[in-house]
């Protein structure tokens, strides 16, 4: 799937494909598929289970097949899709390798295993599904029952978790700095929200749109945790990735939405680099233009809006951000666009002179995005 070419660093300019492949014409998805649909159909009809699963993933995630469940049904793989409104979780074990998805270890409805990482991935993706379904009436990542696949034990000493366009992937950590990444439910919800963003606003993973993409993942990651714990905005600690560090690290978590830049300060890791205000905006090239750094600014804006409104953050502030992500934001949105759009949504939902609208405007003003 990779191509060597001179030019952009890691395709950072967006979702373009360099292969010249005619099947890579869509721009909504970060992943481009190079297998022609006819070949996928053959695999889906005649392949073994693993091949069929892979073919399914490709078909289900491909824009040109969206909405064409009849096609998949005719191929006899409709069971993989689940019925509308149904949770369909599958957990795989990469056994410290990098081949995805790995060996199937737990499917929907099966009882817990002895492996904590497997159970955490299962329970965390289930809670995230339930959150989106019950709070925002959303049926999974694509609002069409997209199956929730997760792979645990990816690679050796892998200090990371990611969404690859069709599934979640979790490392075990190196044991020195990080523990396994399934320990924090907000990490799981963060990864799944990358999927939601990909299907909705499709925010480019670079510079300000990329930092917004990251921020939406932290916002809903944190909201899933708060929803599970039934915490109000005041009660929540707004820490992302709490419990991931080993006891040797001086830090409470990876990021603080309440006070960006204060989550850790450790001799080995250095200090949390997140800015809490536009005056400290990171303008360098690292990390796709600082997507995990500058997300501190919109993260704090959400925290400020949610606490100014009060109560359960998912009910009002979360709804405003969700509708902005689903209906209003474009893939190239800047921070100021996010500010305008969330204010507009707050005005639509609660009134132009409402407390909610004022809370959202005040939040973006406090982080220096608008005057």
């Amino acid at each position, binding site marked *: *799937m*990779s191509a060597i070419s001179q030019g952009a660093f*890691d395709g950072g300019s967006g*979702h373009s*494909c360099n292969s010249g492949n005619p099947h*890579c014409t869509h721009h909504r998805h970060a992943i*481009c598929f190079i297998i022609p649909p006819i070949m996928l159909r053959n695999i889906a009809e005649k392949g073994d289970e693993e091949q069929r699963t892979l073919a399914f993933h490709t078909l289900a995630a491909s824009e040109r097949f969206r909405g064409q469940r009849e096609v998949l049904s005719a191929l006899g793989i409709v069971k993989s899709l689940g019925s509308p409104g149904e949770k369909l979780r599958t957990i795989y074990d990469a056994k410290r390798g990098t081949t995805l998805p790995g060996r199937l270890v737990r499917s929907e409805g099966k009882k817990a295993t002895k492996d904590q990482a497997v159970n955490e991935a299962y329970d965390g993706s289930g809670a995230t599904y339930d959150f989106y379904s019950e709070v925002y009436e959303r049926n999974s990542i694509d609002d069409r029952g997209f199956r929730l696949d997760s792979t645990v034990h990816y690679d050796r000493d892998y200090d990371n978790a990611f969404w690859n366009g069709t599934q979640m992937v979790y490392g075990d950590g190196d044991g020195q700095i990080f523990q396994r*990444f399934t320990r924090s439910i907000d990490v799981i919800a963060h990864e799944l929200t990358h999927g939601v963003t990909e299907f909705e606003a499709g925010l480019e*993973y670079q510079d300000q749109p990329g930092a917004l993409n990251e921020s939406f993942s932290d916002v809903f990651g944190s909201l899933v945790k708060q929803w599970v714990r039934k915490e109000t905005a005041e009660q929540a600690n707004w820490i992302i990735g709490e419990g991931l560090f080993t006891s040797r690290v001086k830090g409470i978590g*990876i990021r603080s939405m309440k006070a960006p830049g204060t989550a850790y300060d450790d001799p080995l890791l250095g200090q949390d680099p997140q800015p809490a205000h536009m005056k400290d905006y990171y303008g360098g090239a690292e990390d796709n233009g600082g997507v995990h750094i500058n997300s501190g600014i919109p993260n704090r804006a959400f925290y400020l809006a949610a606490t100014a409104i009060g109560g359960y953050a998912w009910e009002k502030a979360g709804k405003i951000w969700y509708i902005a992500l689903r209906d209003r934001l474009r893939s190239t949105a800047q921070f100021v666009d996010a500010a305008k759009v969330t204010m507009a949504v707050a005005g639509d939902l609660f009134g132009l002179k409402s407390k909610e609208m004022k809370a959202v405007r005040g939040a973006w003003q406090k982080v220096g995005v608008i005057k």
Partner: protein
Amino acid sequence: MRASLERTGGFAGMRLTSTADTDKLAPEEAKELRQLVEAADFFRLPPTIASQANQPDRFQYKLTVEDDQRTHTVMVGEAAIPPRVRPLAEWLTQYARRR
């Protein structure tokens, strides 16, 4: 010969760096590092290796090797690391953790 790694991005957005100098490594390790650089055909890699898939939360690598005559830097996303370069990146990542 000196080989260095800068890893940024990832879920945690943390920076990991290491520089290994064959003059300061144990002879066996120095030999291993030279072999990895050679196996990667490092000096012939393009300065940036683009990825078709810009996947959220993946690592970004910047690898630099300098010997007596030349210095070369390669930027690559985790998902696009060519198989022959991967062992070098892994070796330098382990080296960063060991300090």
